Structure formats: structure tokens, C-alpha cells
């Protein structure tokens, strides 16, 4: 029996389509996997179901009747429950209060909070997931991340009068859980299925999906590629469906080969987020970092860039010890960094292009390192803007007036402003249109031809294979192996990210 059906869902952000044609049918009493690469549109679809954003176009039916999720409250009333990837907890409140966040507390005489009832209900919700070791009176913030996740999950299973839960939407719920904790969650999900409820289950862990789910829908580039019974498909077929497209001429060929000279050596570096990472990057070489999201890629760059402290291990740049204490140190030492979020981390949007370009090496553009020379700055920014094929009305245009791709080129122009020896890139082409993407790849190639070393963190596997010389794989803050990108196919790389066959490659 069909519980929920979505057809022809489309959604664009500022003209860039995130979803173009998604079709999905969920039956009562099934666990349905939603799969796809990063950027395939899974998160956008979930946000639409949750009533957080509105689709540009969609036909949504529940029990055969048309419905709309115009707000989170509406989705809740229709019986949808969400467990998001992010924790979203209130650390200063108790476990029981966190379970009841967004719900009406049980009361006495309609006014006073019935604390005993609150804790008893919370206790029962936790016990159902087998979380007997967590006291409902403890502060949420004192729990481990895994336990916090379990508390959040138990909250979604709390039964409610008036709006019974019918569909659970879970976005990578096991990312922070141990195997035993995951198993307990799966047991509850199977109970829900047996009781006629439905689960939409988003996960990158293919083995988990194969074991738990009945059917799977695969998204790619905002479109439903296929829906089928999990029992009738192999692990490899599923990966092939997710990847789909070929590595083509999207990447400019390398002009020269790396010289073999070493630029950067990280030897056993570690801190709160990294454990014993060893990495070597040659002059003119592009080394990719692959892995599931949150495996420590961002933290590796932030450590190399002096933002996160280096607690263990050593770094060497061109044979000399390198120990940055701040991003300012890193820029001075010849590093450059293109952060992941260009709007919040990359640009001062309210300032003109030239001020953004010269910010990292402002002193070298100034008289005596102190007095500004705006005319020289503009000329300098215009020259670098030409190098990165920036399309703008002039160096005085405000950064906020540029398109995403051109904003990213401004960030690149800044990165190139001091002739860096090592360039750190974090998802450099995310949210960038195809044309600007090729320009950015060309810039990276040009720089490596001059001997610059590049570390490229990306969740875009074709990009890693198309651009890198070698690819290192990270898992849970560790390096699990390094492979040559030459002749590598996406399926092998994806399997390495999922931890299959990493030993063979390492």
C-alpha cells in the first residue's frame, strides 16, 4: 500500500537546479533507502519533506490524497519524523528535556511541568533503544557524540497523541554510532516496519543498506535514476548506478609531470581530529584527499594551515621545519588556502574585489607595509583577476554582486596573490557552474606547472580522479591508504572510501 508518493519534484537555488525530476514512492511497512553521491540532491529532497524549503514543482500524495509540506509543523502533523545528520542538541539541558525539545511537556493541572512523568517517558524512550546506561537527568553536553545521537533518535520514536508517526526519515543516522548501537537502531526500525510504519533511510554505507532496506532509490544530479528491490541488485551495481557518468574531458590535461622534488612532508601529525597522518606532496604534484564526509579532510587542511594546533608529529616545507601557529603564519610561509564555504569563510562580501584579493598579502602591496596604495592594489587585482578569468565590471565591484563561480575565482586570485608554494583546496568547485569549474581546474594546472604543490580535498570523485596525481583516503581522522589516480575508476575509489579493499591498495 502506497503511503507517500512524490513525482516530478524540482527545485533550483538561484537558477542552479538542485533537483530536476525526482520520483519516489514509499509503501507502508517498508524500509526504503535513498542513495546518491554528495550533491545528488538527497539533502534537498529531505528538506522539502521536512517543510523547510518549498519545491518549485512537485506532486505529493499521501494515502492517495494530495498534500503539501508547507512548514515543519505541517510535516509533523502529517506523521513525518526526522533524524538529521547534524546533532541539533541543547547541551545545557538534561537528556529528558532534549528528548522533549519542540514538544509539549507533560503537565499537572495544565500549568506545572510534571517532571516525574517527563523523566519516566524519556526513560521508556531510551530503554526502547536499549540505552539503559544513560540517566535522563544528565546534561546532554556530558554525553558522548554517539549517545547524544541515540538520544536524538529516541526522541523521534516518542509516540504522540494527535499526530501518530507514519514515516521516519533518517539522514545517515549511524554516522556516529558503533556497530552495536547501530544494530539496536536497526532492531527498532524493523519493529516499526512490522507495525506498518515506513522508513526513508539515507546512508552512504552500502552494506548497511543491503542488510536493512527493502527497496532503494538512487538519485544522481537531482534526478531519480532507478528504484528497485535491494534483494535483486548487487553492491557493485548500486555503486555504478550512483556514479553513472564517465570521467570525460571535463579536466584539462597536466602540462608537465611533477619533478619528484618534495615540497611538503607531514610526519605522523595528530591532534583532536587527526591521528598519525603521514603525507608527502611533491612540487608540481596534486594530491587528492578522499573519504566519507567528516573523515578529517577539513581538519587536515586546517592543521596544515595553522588553525588547528599541531599536537603530535612534524611538518616540513622544502626541507625546513614548519610549525604554523595561525593562518597568518601559514600565508607567510608560502601556503594558500581556499576554504570550503566561500561566503562565510572566504570572502568579505561587502567589500570590493580588490580588497578581497589583496587581504592575505596586504603589506606587500602597501608603502612600507603600512600605507595603502589603492591604485596599485586595483591594478594588481585586475592582473590576477585576468589570470583566473574573473568576469567582473572591475576590481572595484563588490564581492556580493558576483556569481558563485566568479566569487570562487576571487578567492583563488587571493590564494595566488603571494605566489604560494603549497595550495590547500577544500571543495574548490562546489556550487560552481561547469564553465567556471573548467577555468578553476585550468588555474590549478597552471600553478602546478610552476612547481606549486596542491592538496585537493573533494567529495567529487571524478574531480579527484581527473585532477590528481595521487589520492590519499581518510577514515575517522586517519590515512588508510594512498593510490595513484592514473587509471583509477570511481567504483574502486568509492569502495576505498567505504573501507573495502583499502588494505589491497595501501
Amino acid at each position: 500500500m502506497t503511503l507517500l508518493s512524490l513525482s516530478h519534484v524540482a527545485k533550483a537555488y538561484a537558477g542552479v537546479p538542485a533537483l530536476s525530476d525526482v520520483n519516489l514512492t514509499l509503501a507502508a511497512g517498508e524500509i526504503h533507502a535513498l542513495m546518491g553521491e554528495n550533491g545528488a540532491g538527497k539533502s534537498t529532497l529531505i528538506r522539502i519533506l521536512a517543510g523547510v524549503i518549498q519545491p518549485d514543482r512537485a506532486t505529493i500524495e499521501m494515502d492517495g490524497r494530495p498534500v503539501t509540506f508547507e512548514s515543519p509543523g505541517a510535516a509533523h502533523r502529517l506523521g513525518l519524523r526526522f533524524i538529521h545528520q547534524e546533532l541539533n542538541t541543547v547541551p545545557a539541558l538534561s537528556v529528558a528535556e532534549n528528548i522533549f525539545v519542540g514538544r509539549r511537556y507533560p503537565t499537572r493541572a495544565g500549568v506545572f511541568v510534571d517532571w516525574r512523568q517527563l523523566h519516566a517517558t524519556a526513560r521508556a524512550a531510551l530503554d526502547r533503544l536499549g540505552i539503559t546506561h544513560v540517566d535522563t537527568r544528565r546534561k546532554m553536553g556530558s554525553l558522548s557524540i554517539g549517545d547524544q545521537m541515540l538520544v536524538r533518535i529516541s526522541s523521534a520514536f516518542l509516540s504522540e497523541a494527535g499526530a501518530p508517526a507514519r514515516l521516519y526519515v533518517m539522514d545517515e543516522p549511524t554516522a556516529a554510532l558503533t556497530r552495536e548501537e547501530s544494530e539496536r537502531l536497526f532492531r527498532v526500525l524493523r519493529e516499526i516496519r512490522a507495525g506498518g510504519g515506513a522508513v526513508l533511510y539515507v546512508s552512504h554505507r552500502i552494506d548497511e543498506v543491503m542488510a536493512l532496506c527493502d527497496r532503494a532509490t538512487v538519485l544522481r544530479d537531482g534526478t531519480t535514476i532507478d528504484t528497485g528491490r535491494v534483494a535483486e541488485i548487487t553492491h557493485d551495481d548500486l555503486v555504478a548506478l550512483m556514479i553513472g557518468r564517465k570521467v570525460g574531458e571535463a579536466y584539462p590535461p597536466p602540462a608537465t609531470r611533477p619533478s619528484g622534488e618534495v615540497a611538503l612532508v607531514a610526519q605522523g601529525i595528530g591532534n583532536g581530529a587527526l591521528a598519525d597522518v603521514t603525507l608527502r606532496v611533491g612540487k608540481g604534484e596534486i594530491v587528492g584527499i578522499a573519504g566519507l564526509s567528516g573523515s578529517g579532510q577539513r581538519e587536515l587542511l586546517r592543521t596544515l594551515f595553522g588553525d588547528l594546533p599541531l599536537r603530535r608529529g612534524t611538518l616540513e616545507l622544502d626541507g625546513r621545519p614548519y610549525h604554523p601557529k595561525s593562518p597568518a603564519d601559514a600565508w607567510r610561509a608560502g601556503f594558500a588556502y581556499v576554504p570550503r564555504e566561500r561566503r562565510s569563510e572566504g570572502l568579505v562580501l561587502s567589500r570590493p574585489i580588490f580588497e578581497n584579493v589583496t587581504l592575505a598579502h596586504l603589506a606587500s602591496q602597501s608603502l612600507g607595509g603600512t600605507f595603502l596604495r589603492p591604485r596599485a592594489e586595483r591594478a594588481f587585482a585586475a592582473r590576477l583577476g585576468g589570470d583566473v578569468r574573473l568576469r567582473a565590471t572591475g576590481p572595484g565591484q563588490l564581492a556580493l554582486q558576483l556569481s558563485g563561480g566568479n566569487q570562487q575565482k576571487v578567492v583563488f586570485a587571493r590564494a595566488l596573490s603571494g605566489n604560494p608554494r603549497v595550495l590547500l583546496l577544500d571543495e574548490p568547485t562546489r556550487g560552481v557552474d561547469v564553465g567556471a569549474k573548467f577555468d578553476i581546474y585550468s588555474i590549478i594546472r597552471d600553478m602546478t606547472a610552476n612547481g606549486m604543490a596542491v592538496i585537493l580535498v573533494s567529495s567529487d570523485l571524478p574531480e579527484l580522479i581527473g585532477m590528481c596525481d595521487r589520492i590519499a583516503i581518510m577514515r575517522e581522522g586517519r590515512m588508510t591508504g594512498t593510490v595513484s589516480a592514473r587509471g583509477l575508476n570511481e567504483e574502486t575509489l568509492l569502495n576505498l572510501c567505504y573501507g573495502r579493499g583499502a588494505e589491497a591498495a595501501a
Partner: protein
Amino acid sequence: MMALALLRRYGTLIGFVLILAVFWISLPETFMTARNWLNTTQQLSMLMVVAAGMTIVMAMGDFDLSVGSAASLAGIVAGALFIAGYPPAMAVGAALAIGLAGGAINGVLVSVIGILPFIATLATLTIYSGLAFVISGGKTISGKSIPESFGNFAREGLPLGEVGGVALMLPNLTIVAVAVVFLVWVLLEQTTFGRRLYAIGGNIEAAYLSGVPVRRLKLAAFALTGLSAAGAGLMYASRVASANPTQGSGLMLNAIAAVFLGMTMSEQGEPRILATVIGVLILGVLDNGLTQLAVDSYIRQILVGAIIVLAVSAGALGKRGRR
């Protein structure tokens, strides 16, 4: 749409001109005279110096509530040293150093320890004020203990010749205020320091990742704001030839109001020193004109507040219209 954008950008300036016109018409004899203007600039000079310093921290998106009590404290410190018999130059130097140190403490609280500026400077506001009371014993320091040269400074100025039989001079305090504005203008508009402060104000994370030493700059900016507050406190003490533990207390709100008025005039709504100057002039001219019109001082407060709300809401509405 075009008209709205113009109004947003120049609304405050147009308002200023209207205010001038009203006063000129209602006070034809006295308002638009060199004498009155020179007098007004002297009255404004303390506020001008504090507002200039406030512009420095507000360029980073922070602000400093302690400037008023820092000004009082500086005056009291100088007064106490006068009583102890130190030469005026040394007392003035020590008072300025106290302001610099007080500002640096604000900077440490905000940038190193990471307290919100509102809370940090609210706390130091009461601390500096308390210190001023402790040092002075709650009494006004005046009379013979104030050296003549110190009190005379504010009364003297640069002679400008005679107009209509009245000797005119450019008051020393006005000269100091102009010099401070010029220095802050150079600092904010012409140096890497100022550029980086505006980058911090625009996007602190992006500035930090671009290698801007955020902590050090915040500390320096707060220290300079404290120094300017101390300078204003000394100017005040010189003008009334006495030091009182509460005499700077009115400066803080007016300085912040002046910067906000100025922000309604700048392109991206950021604080700019020359716009702050106009903000100070608006507040000063209103005060001067309304006093001459014998408007009750309580009514004056209400009018000044209403004009600030009007100017800032016009800016906010204009911004919303652009979205």
C-alpha cells in the same frame, strides 16, 4: 526605487541641511555666525574625539561602552597627580596612559578571553567609574590644585582676527579634535591596519583565514579607543578647570549615536570617520540650536532621540528595499 536609494544614502545629510535651514531661519541673528560655529565646535570637541575612537572599534563590528567612565577616570587621575604636585605634562601623560591601558584591558577581555564586547565593556564601565570615585573620594577636584596652564589650555586658541569688533579665535580644543579626526582618518582609510579592521567587521572568519591577526588588531583597536576616551576626559577637565568622577558619563551614548548616524550615510552601512564627523555635528547643532531657541532640555532629549531613530530606521528600511 532610485529615489529610495538616494534617500537611503543621502537622507541623513538632507536631514542635516534641513535642520540647519530651520535654525538659520528661526535664529537669523545668532545661528549662522562664525562666533556661534566656533563656539559649537568647542562644545563638540570632546564628543568628537570619543566618537572618532568609537569609530575604530565599530569598524570591526564591536563597540565600547566604557568610554565615558574611562574619560572620567582619566580626568580624575590627572587631577590627583596635580594635587600630588606632579608637573602638568607628566599628569596628562599618566592619564592618557591609563586610558590606553583601560582600553587594552577591554581588548584582552574581548579578543583573548572572548567575552562579548557588550558584557566586557559594561563590566569595565563600572570598574573604571568605581576607580574614579575611589581615587577622588567622590569629590570634585578643582580650584587651586588645578594648574593654571591646564585650565587655560581650553580657554585659549588661535586668534583669527576681528569680525564686527569681536575678536575671534579657533579654540585649542577644536584644534585637538580636528587633529584626532585627521589621525583616525589616516589610520582607518589609509593604512593596512584600517583595511584589516574593516575586513574583520565585514567577515571575521574570512579575515582570520586570510591571515589577518584578528586578536592583535582587536586589542590595538580597543586600546586606541581607550586612549581617545582619556583624551576627551582631559579636554573636559581642562574646559571646566576641574575633574569630577562623573563628568564623562554622557559621552558614551552620544558617541555611539553619532557613529550610528554616520553609518546611515556610508555605502555599505559601515562606520566611516568622516560620516561620524557629520553625526557629531548633527547632535551638536541640534543641541546648540534647540538651546538657543530655549527649548526645554528634557524636550531636547526626546527630540534628539527621535531624530536618531528616524535616521537609523530610514537606513534600515532602505536596506530592506534593496533585497
